[in-house]
């Protein structure tokens, strides 16, 4: 047999055989309280993708404080997609890690935030300290449990809620600062992530009120019993917009860009929105939002743009090293 024939035949066999198998693995790097959401969603997406393309997708999850997770990605964690608590953390990946373009937020609807949430209070059953609104958090003897806003996305939203309430009530940055400082004086321990602060409040029985993601509060009720805790909805809170993005450089390298994009787009589908709603995230789709309206308390929500001029400004002013939070929490 001629050399050329041997070469061509074996090459053809090798390429044909290798082309059959296609198992795809994605890594979704997310923040603390989304564990349950993405367990449900990943299963649904895998089923959808298998039916659509015949390929098997396995999505691995990584969870932690949103800021800490962003740093992990910047430092080399091979995330195909990030689903973080706030846009500033994805911005950090774009700016400091150069792993996706600066305009990432325009690539998906609703500024790449397929669902929203807010901050509510979780108190012990019977609300023994009578906590009804943000003012009550500064009362002497009230223990407030919340995570560290330097590492936790949820905690940043909580901090901004405190500040926003005060600014709206008294119309002064100075008063807002004093009020926020007073609230944080009542914080006995700062966890690094939202799930950690839930553990502190629920399992370690520390404090009187947990400043929690809405979905995290409902999950705590479901898991630990409505006979032990209750949710208190304050008069006003912030509209939290967790954002999602494909980490282009990683996905391109791994050859997973197309499926990673489809994975995030499917969050906006009816099934994706239903799963979000069932996990106590507020869906963007108005029809599905109406269907699950009873799951969510009516609360006056303000946006970060409205009170703080956007994430970039809020991040720099409040959470950068030496920023306002560092100044008021220096104990």
């Amino acid at each position, binding site marked *: 047999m001629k*050399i050329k024939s*041997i*070469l061509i035949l*074996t090459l053809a066999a090798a390429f044909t055989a*290798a082309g*059959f*198998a296609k198992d*795809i693995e994605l890594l979704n790097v997310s923040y603390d309280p989304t564990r349950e959401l993405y367990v449900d969603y990943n299963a649904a997406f895998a089923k959808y993708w298998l039916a659509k393309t015949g390929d098997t997708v396995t999505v691995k999850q990584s969870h932690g404080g949103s800021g800490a997770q962003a740093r992990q990605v910047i430092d080399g964690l091979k995330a195909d997609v990030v689903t973080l608590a706030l846009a500033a953390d994805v911005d950090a990946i774009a700016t400091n890690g150069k792993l996706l373009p600066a305009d990432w937020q325009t690539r998906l609807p609703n500024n790449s935030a397929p669902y929203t949430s807010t901050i509510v209070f979780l108190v012990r059953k019977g609300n023994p300290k009578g906590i009804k609104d943000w003012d009550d958090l500064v009362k002497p003897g009230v223990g407030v449990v919340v995570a560290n806003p330097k590492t936790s996305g949820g905690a940043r939203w909580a901090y901004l809620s405190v500040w926003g309430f005060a600014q709206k009530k008294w119309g002064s940055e100075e008063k807002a600062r004093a009020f926020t400082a007073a609230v944080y004086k009542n914080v006995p321990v700062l966890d690094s992530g939202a799930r950690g602060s839930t553990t502190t409040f629920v399992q370690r029985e*520390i404090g009187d009120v947990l400043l929690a993601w809405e979905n995290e509060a409902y999950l705590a009720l479901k898991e630990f019993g409505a006979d032990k805790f209750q949710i208190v909805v304050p008069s006003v809170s912030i509209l939290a917009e967790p954002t999602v993005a494909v980490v282009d450089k990683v996905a*391109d390298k791994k050859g997973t860009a197309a499926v990673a994009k489809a994975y995030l787009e499917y969050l906006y589908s009816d099934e994706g929105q239903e799963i979000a709603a069932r996990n106590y995230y507020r869906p963007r789709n108005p029809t599905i939002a109406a269907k699950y309206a009873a799951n969510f308390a009516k609360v006056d929500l303000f946006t970060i743009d409205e009170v703080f001029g956007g994430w970039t400004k809020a991040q720099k002013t409040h959470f950068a090293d030496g920023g306002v939070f560092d100044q008021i929490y220096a104990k």
Partner: protein
Amino acid sequence: MKKLTATACTLLFALTGFTAATAPAFAAEADDIQALREQISQLDQKLKILERKQELKDEAAATAAKAAPKITVTDKVISIASGDGANFLKFHALVQADARWFFNQSGALTANDAFLVRRARIFLDGQFNTNTTFLLVPDFAGSAPTLIDAYVNQAFTPQFQLRAGRFREPVGLEQLQSDSVADFTERSFVSQIVPNRDIGLQLGGDLFNGTLNYAAGVFDGVPDGQNNGAVAGTVTNTDADNNKDVAVRVFAQPFKNDSDSALHGLGFGVGATDGRQLPASGLAGYKTEAQQSVFAYRATSIIQGKTTRVSPQAYYYYGPFGLLGEYALSAIHARPSATGNEIELRNQAWQLEAGYVLTGEDAGYTGVVPKTVFDWNNGTWGAFEVVTRLDVLAIDKKAFAPNPPGLSLADPLANPSRITDYGLGLNWYLSKTVRASLDFYHGTFDLPGGTTTANTTKPLLRNSENALVTRFQISF
């Protein structure tokens, strides 16, 4: 009755008086209890806060420990790595102490019965920033230290990796297998007619979720079975001519990701090279399995012109069973002298080897990992594997044909036209690190037309070769 009523009244009066007198004391006590309860509650909170703070401190310390540099010393590697694993240096070594014993060939040998150090290598490999790796391997087994491998690998993606330096050309299946895990102490004839280590630049990677590996490179070019710089008349780290060889290999493992499939351990592919060699490149000879020099071209013969090799190859591993087969065709152009005619030679080799791990461990291309470590006192013996091999080297008849007006490329009276070798071996894996091997090689020689065992000028060719090769090896 009156008396009873009076007594009751007296008692009631006394009780009322007592109650009135003691009520403030009870109230004060209740306040105290309440205060104590609150105090206990506060202390309980303080204690819980302290405990939680300690818990968080411990978690932070554990996270910091993960980030700290790690020193690892195991029975497979000694390494220093950064906490995130992105950077590391690893130190390995390979020592092979062999003995070769030849039977029924008194006076006919081209090699002696001997103890020898076959390989004595130190491996230093490392990684920087996850994607850049290097390997540096010197060998101290020869009369002078030799550089075996020295390359840098830049992984842009798993599918796209660039390698530069000195390393094995991507052609032969057994040739690409690590020296420490090959089934036999010595490689087959196939490895003698595909190139060994060369200096060049290679692009390679894994496609389709690791089921297809490819490599394509440009190299200085080496004769059959040779290393760059290992041929007399050439100097390490230089090329003897301006021509370059191109080497390409693709290898598929279609069921690699399906661990339940019976074909999980199937792999097959093909490697090939193409290039041109100038006279200074030399013409390589061949050795028997027991490393006796058995074939050599005439000293006046020179390689000149196009060199092409192709090697289809496959392996299959299923549990303790392993099978590896490959074929290689080497087409070279040579002249019996600088002024002689150019002749195309098509030398061929093939091999089929099979192994079975008697102690039940999985066989594999990357070796056998014993379930137990040899320990006389505890009665554990490690793993045992039997291996067998049949391989053939066939020299093109044109190598022996007279080439008017000059001589043939190879002396037909002093060289075989075909060697067939049967190998049988036993490997004892005392641990992951230590291995002992005992191989018996039986080689038979076919002689070119007109040559007989009576008129051959090389005594080695008058009988078959029977040799026992033993090895005691440490590899980590």
